[in-house]
């Protein structure tokens, strides 16, 4: 498959129709996750940012970018633990680090040649010596991850990918609840993240990347999803 021209200069409307189709979902799903075509090309059209492109490849690269960010954060947390990190905190935060690395490596493997390069994080705004700052940042990353997967799920056309995104997002939600409980028991799902319907609040790709880019040296754009940094 040649590189999609739909990504050129961001023409979201051209891809809209196929993007919203249900038809063919069953057929695509039958070919399996690893059949993803290498039709993604990285652009630096948007102020030097990497663009996620369009279609399922875009959503997977979007997730890959977020998982890279989370993995890098927890690797740093464990490499330079804040003072007084308890045994159970060390154990849980190490587990979370390894989960995020597993997520990151899964997306890299699934995307093959279409995968983003390694992104360089910028955590200069986070004080890794402070328990409150580290867990506060962890909470923000985990809640953001949950909102990101929940907000992008409907864009996924392949049912295998959708199910795998579902397998990951509930683990992110488990992380979010744990980090919140470490900071203050009982805040696992308080009103700051849960609405009156007892539901998390999804966020759009544009909303999420705006936050994620604060922690990335190389920015990520999503021209097909109304976001250019």
């Amino acid at each position, binding site marked *: 498959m040649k590189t999609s021209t739909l990504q050129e200069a961001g023409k979201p409307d051209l891809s*809209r*129709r196929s993007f*919203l*189709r*249900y*038809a063919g*979902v*069953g057929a695509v799903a039958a070919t*399996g*996750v*690893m059949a993803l075509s290498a039709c993604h090309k990285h652009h630096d059209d948007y102020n030097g940012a990497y663009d996620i492109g369009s279609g399922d490849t875009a959503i997977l690269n979007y997730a890959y970018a977020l998982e890279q960010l989370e993995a890098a954060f927890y690797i740093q947390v464990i490499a330079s633990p804040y003072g007084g990190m308890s045994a159970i905190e060390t154990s849980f935060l190490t*587990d979370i*680090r*390894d*989960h*995020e*690395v*597993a*997520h990151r*490596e*899964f997306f*890299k*493997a699934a995307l093959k040649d279409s995968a983003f390069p390694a992104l360089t994080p910028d955590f200069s705004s986070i004080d890794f010596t402070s328990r409150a700052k580290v867990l506060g940042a962890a909470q923000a990353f985990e809640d953001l991850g949950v909102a990101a*997967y*929940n*907000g992008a*799920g*409907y864009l996924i*056309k392949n*049912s295998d990918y*959708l*199910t*795998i*995104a*579902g*397998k*990951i*997002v*509930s*683990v*992110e*939600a*488990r*992380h979010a*609840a*744990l980090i919140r*409980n470490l900071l203050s*028991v*009982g805040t*696992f*799902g*308080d009103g700051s993240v*849960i609405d*009156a*319907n*007892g*539901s*998390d*609040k*999804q966020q759009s790709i544009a909303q999420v990347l705006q936050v994620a880019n604060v922690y990335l040296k190389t920015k990520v754009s999503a021209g097909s999803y109304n976001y250019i940094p």
Partner: protein
Amino acid sequence: MNLFNLFEDIENADPEFQDRISPRRDAIKNMAGFGTKVAVAALPFALSSLFKKAYGQSAPAGVTAALTYALKLEYFEAAFYRTALAVPNLISASEKATITAIGAHEAEHVAFLRTALNVTTPAPADTSYDFTARGTFATVLTNYETFLAVAQAIEDTGVRAYKGQAGALIGQQVYLTAALNIHSVEARHASAIRYLRRLNHGATTTKPWITGTASVSNDTGISAADGNYAGENNTIQGGVDITKLPGVSGNISVTAAIEAFDEPLTMQQVLALVAPFGVS
């Protein structure tokens, strides 16, 4: 019935099907954030008008089936917490806030789904359920540790149940997003209950996430819950063996590969698991 084939058939017969129900249509576009923005009271109108606009009928059968199933499980969960919270001295005072908050969410899920589905028939009575599951958990309403263990299994199973319906809601901006937003709250609940058990109730190996080994999928140690955790020790995702991928040092461990991905259950599997509780 294969939902995807159904959609294909519809689209073959009606090429404009996508445009009829596409989120780009103003009627639906305006509802994109309906979970947070649109008043709950406006929902039945919003949802029904959406599909009347498409076909002059109600929601697609697959969507209705998935959400009706979700409501059935939420009825049970809400009744479980409501009943337990009403038992004097069952729930420890220091943990009552957490259990109360979880119960409130379940009741909100019930209200939300009833509204979304436009259900007007009464909910099943709380007394219609057997929370002991025909005696398997005989002390569920008299022993707090048993209650927490059952709550954990119910929440973990709820997560698996929603996950199993993702395919039925694929591409549905409104319905899938709403289901995902509930799904992740169930996971928050499971994490919170697991943490309480680890922190205060001697569950020294329990983690906020479901762990396991190559031969053990049920990390609760309660064999009666084996079915609830069947397959949770899967380490192959989309054909990718997670344990063959690079970790922080060496390959990703079997433990991390199991914990990092929660697994779905089918509707049939879940209904069989909750049948002993009187969910029908």
